[in-house]
């Protein structure tokens, strides 16, 4: 039938989309520290903890400077990875992985990068260009041709048969694979919700793997201090984390990086009830919630100007308070996913919020 | 067994060239009440002149002339592949001839608009795709399409014509059954009813008796006889020489696309002609009522034959 080729494409696409986006999320029932509901936009609901407490309680992620003991075996998103030595030839896929390595001062161990999401943070930007394998996910052969000893991926789907290679097959070829723990898709491994401890644990873990514990400890301490210096906004403002999508918006939901960042900034996420990292939403639900501010994720493919033009051009969304009064906060895409730039996201959003001078 | 409903009207002798108003299937009083609306497709004699047609490079109809007077039955006979169906399709205007003309009365078929032609000429085909999901009555209703306005809907009159047509051929009891479920014979009746419901002046039939048993064959031809009596011009392709001889006023013998004989049965269907065209030996006898009866036998080699 004629539906067939079209449907096949759609289904293949669905498979890609579900596997592909770390933010697709699962819908498990447990809620975690999500705040806020979609109803009553005007009520001032105080934000619950999960934000400042990361610095105050310091639950379990002490910055330990002891040397690594190899072989090091780690359960990473359900796959057991064993490191016999610190990896020296790393292929890093997605900005979160690339910038983690840069932040730990490991630029010289990067033999190739792929699928970068935007410019690197200036404080650890490399002197020259990192060797770029591919704009998107590289193929397995292209990856193996570089003879890496570690493929460090920002999305779990990056290390699949359609991507840089199935984890088992790469392991058989002597290449270790590591997925950013915040991006694990399986319910058992996905942080539910994501906490600052999760993020800092990952930094410490990377420090152990690469045998740079001091750099990791220093980074964690620095980020904790930066986070502690930010006081969450107490006005109970509601916000929409608008990532992409025109007909149907794709927004930051209740358990991922957007929620974590918004909690730290002191914004109440209108999609906090959804037990996913990111989720699609209906415009109707957004308009009904009428958020006070809109956080726009800026990327090369979905620029801020385009998003604003879309919001203003659609007569339905043009009625939103935030659109009418131009109450936008902008966060660059690489800082919008869980990683070493999450604290930076909190900082920039906080500063912009103050500048908005909202009543 | 079904009964054929015949019009209890005397057969009015009609002379060639007569252009009396076409007889409606409805009774005269009703038809008169309809006024002009009931008079479509005036009956007229059929004249075919020098008709020629090629298909895929092959000459299928070769310079065919024939005439069928209005109110008479013309039978086209001939062996398989002689071109009988093709001739009917050409007369109906479904195929376009390479040369020659077909006239209905004074009007050329080729010059008529499609709609007009559909109102004046009806063809009951020999083979149809049986996988049609309409009921028999709905199939007959299709015939009213040429009479309806472009985006119009069948009205009371149309439904009455359909009913009359079905009764005429004795198909009214399976009117509501699916066409696909009917037997070959029943389908043939329905298709004949459909052709009648078109209320044409010229009725073309392609092997209307193929699937019918003896009695049904005779009944069908009686219906045709009575229709001719009402002034309709009828041209039917028949493979049964006896039927042709018994019911037709004119017999046209076609062989390899050419007319080899045309005229009353007695003159057209002689044993010699049958031997030449069909390659069989024929004895023509006379039944007590004068109808010709044929006896066939294989042709054996004869000196000088």
């Amino acid at each position, binding site marked *: 039938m004629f539906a067939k080729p079209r449907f096949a494409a*759609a289904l293949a696409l669905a498979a890609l989309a579900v596997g592909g986006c770390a933010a697709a999320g699962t819908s498990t029932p447990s809620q975690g520290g999500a705040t806020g509901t979609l109803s009553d936009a005007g009520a001032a609901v105080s934000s619950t903890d999960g934000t400042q407490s990361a610095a105050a309680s310091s639950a379990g992620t002490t910055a330990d400077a002891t040397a690594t003991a190899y072989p090091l075996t780690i359960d990473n998103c359900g796959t057991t990875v064993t490191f016999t030595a610190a990896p020296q030839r790393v292929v890093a896929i997605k900005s979160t992985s690339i910038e983690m390595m840069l932040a730990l001062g490991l630029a010289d161990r990067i033999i190739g990068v792929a699928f970068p999401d935007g410019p690197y943070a200036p404080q650890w930007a490399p002197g020259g260009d990192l060797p770029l394998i591919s704009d998107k996910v590289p193929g397995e052969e292209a990856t193996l041709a570089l003879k890496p000893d570690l493929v460090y991926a920002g999305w779990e789907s990056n290390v699949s048969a359609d991507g840089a290679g199935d984890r088992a097959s790469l392991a058989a070829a002597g290449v270790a694979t590591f997925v950013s723990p915040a991006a694990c898709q399986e319910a058992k491994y996905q942080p539910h919700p994501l906490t600052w401890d999760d993020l800092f644990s990952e930094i410490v873990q990377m420090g152990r793997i690469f045998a740079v514990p001091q750099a990791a400890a220093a980074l964690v301490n620095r980020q904790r201090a930066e986070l502690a210096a930010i006081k969450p906004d107490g006005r109970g403002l509601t916000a929409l984390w608008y990532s992409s999508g*025109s007909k149907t918006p794709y927004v930051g939901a209740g358990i991922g990086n957007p929620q974590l960042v918004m909690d730290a900034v002191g914004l109440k996420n209108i999609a906090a009830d959804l037990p996913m990292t990111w989720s699609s939403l209906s415009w109707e639900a957004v308009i009904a919630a009428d958020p006070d501010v809109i956080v726009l994720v800026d990327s090369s493919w979905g620029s801020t100007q385009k998003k604003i033009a879309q919001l203003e051009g659609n007569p339905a969304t043009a009625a939103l308070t935030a659109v009418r009064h131009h109450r936008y906060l902008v966060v660059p895409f690489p800082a919008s996913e869980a990683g070493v730039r999450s604290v930076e996201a909190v900082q920039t959003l906080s500063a912009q919020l103050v500048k908005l001078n909202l009543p | 067994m079904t009964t054929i409903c015949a019009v209890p009207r005397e057969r009015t002798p009609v002379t060639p060239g007569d252009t009396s108003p076409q007889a409606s299937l409805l009774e005269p009083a009703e038809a008169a009440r309809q006024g002009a609306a009931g008079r479509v497709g005036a009956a007229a004699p059929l004249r075919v002149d020098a008709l020629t047609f090629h298909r895929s490079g092959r000459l299928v109809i070769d310079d065919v002339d024939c005439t069928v007077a209005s109110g008479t039955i013309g039978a086209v006979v001939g062996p398989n592949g002689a071109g009988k169906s093709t001739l009917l399709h050409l007369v109906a205007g479904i195929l376009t001839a390479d040369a020659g003309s077909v006239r209905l009365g004074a009007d050329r078929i080729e010059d008529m608009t499609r709609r007009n032609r559909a109102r004046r000429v009806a063809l009951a085909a020999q083979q149809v795709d049986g996988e049609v999901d309409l009921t028999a009555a709905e199939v007959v209703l299709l015939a009213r399409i040429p009479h309806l306005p472009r*985006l119009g809907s069948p009205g009371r009159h149309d439904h009455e014509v359909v009913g009359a047509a079905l009764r005429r051929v004795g198909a009214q*009891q399976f009117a509501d059954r699916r066409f696909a479920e009917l037997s070959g014979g029943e389908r043939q009746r329905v298709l004949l009813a459909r052709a009648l419901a078109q209320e044409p002046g010229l009725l073309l039939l392609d092997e209307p008796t193929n699937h019918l048993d003896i009695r049904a064959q005779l009944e069908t031809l009686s219906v045709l006889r009575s229709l001719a009596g009402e002034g309709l011009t009828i041209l039917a392709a028949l493979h049964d020489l006896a039927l042709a001889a018994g019911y037709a006023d004119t017999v046209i013998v076609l062989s390899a696309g050419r007319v080899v004989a045309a005229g009353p049965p007695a003159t057209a269907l002689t044993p010699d002609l049958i031997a030449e065209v069909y390659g069989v030996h024929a004895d023509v006898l006379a039944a007590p009522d004068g109808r010709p009866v044929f006896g066939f036998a294989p042709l054996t080699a004869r000196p000088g034959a």
Partner: protein
Amino acid sequence: MTTRLTDRPSGSGAADALRRRPRATVFGIGSVLLVALVVSVIVAVTVGPAPISLRAVWQSIAAHLGWGAGRPPLTVDAIVWNLRLPRALTSALVGAALAVCGVVMQAVTRNPLAEPYLLGLSSGASVGAVVVIVLGAAIALPLAAFGGSLAALILTLLLAGAFGGATALSPSRIILAGIAVSAAFSAVTSIVIFWSTTGDSFREILGWLLGSIAGASWTSVAIVAVAFLVVGVPLALGGNVLDAFAFGDDDARALGVDVRRVRWLLLGASALLTGAAVAVSGAIGFVGLIVPHAVRLVTGHRNRALLPLSALVGAILLTWADTLARTAFDPRELPVGIVTALLGAPVFAALLIRAKRLT
């Protein structure tokens, strides 16, 4: 025994049965369906993720139409007038358009499996849509989709031998050409998807491929309404001509139909109408295929009745399907194509089983 034609049959003659059934039932069923459609649209405008009372709905609509004094709050008004109402109207119009085109296609090709996208229309539109989404110019989506379907249509007709010979536009050649062109365009769509999409555009493309009325605006309503009035209504009233094709081309000619011209007109009109629908709502499947069959169960096969009733049933069906898609997973939305597929597949199976039992 002979029956004189002068005898008037009383009551239960075949012609009377034929006359009574369509006259009484088509009009009756049509009226009921029309009322059902109005009710469906009202329900669609009233339900949704945002709780809005019937009174507020009426106020909003009345205010826009120039009656009544009160005006509900801006966001409520935006939801009712700029989201729900255009969406409900678009669903109804697209459903009607697809159903009518389905009937026409099934009649012209004399194939019960035919559907509106037969001529490669949806695949062509997909190419246009996907290219535009990937390039980030989603504003031009309807135009690109329509252009794509036109391109596919021309190719299909060319391939089916439109410009030569008596057997040129035969049903079987049309179907085969449509399959070929659909496959080719689907392949192009797949290439574009796999080559250039980022995580964000995956979702938009998927929504489009499955068919979604999520982005419907008053512009969408205008596009489909104009197409339906100009093309759809004449099609819906042209049942007689379609019926003439019941026994094939020769037979249709014998009934006075200009087969070649009529077929061109029917295919062209159907393509225009389908193109408009697809441009606005993506490739919603099953409506054009299932609705004609379902309506045939009630009215029989005469297109005279089938066409207008299918339009109404298609409108009602899609309105409800979209309402379901919007509300079943509140606050998230499903693309409506998923709902029609979920509904359509079992219905189709049931129809097949029923047909098997009858033969």
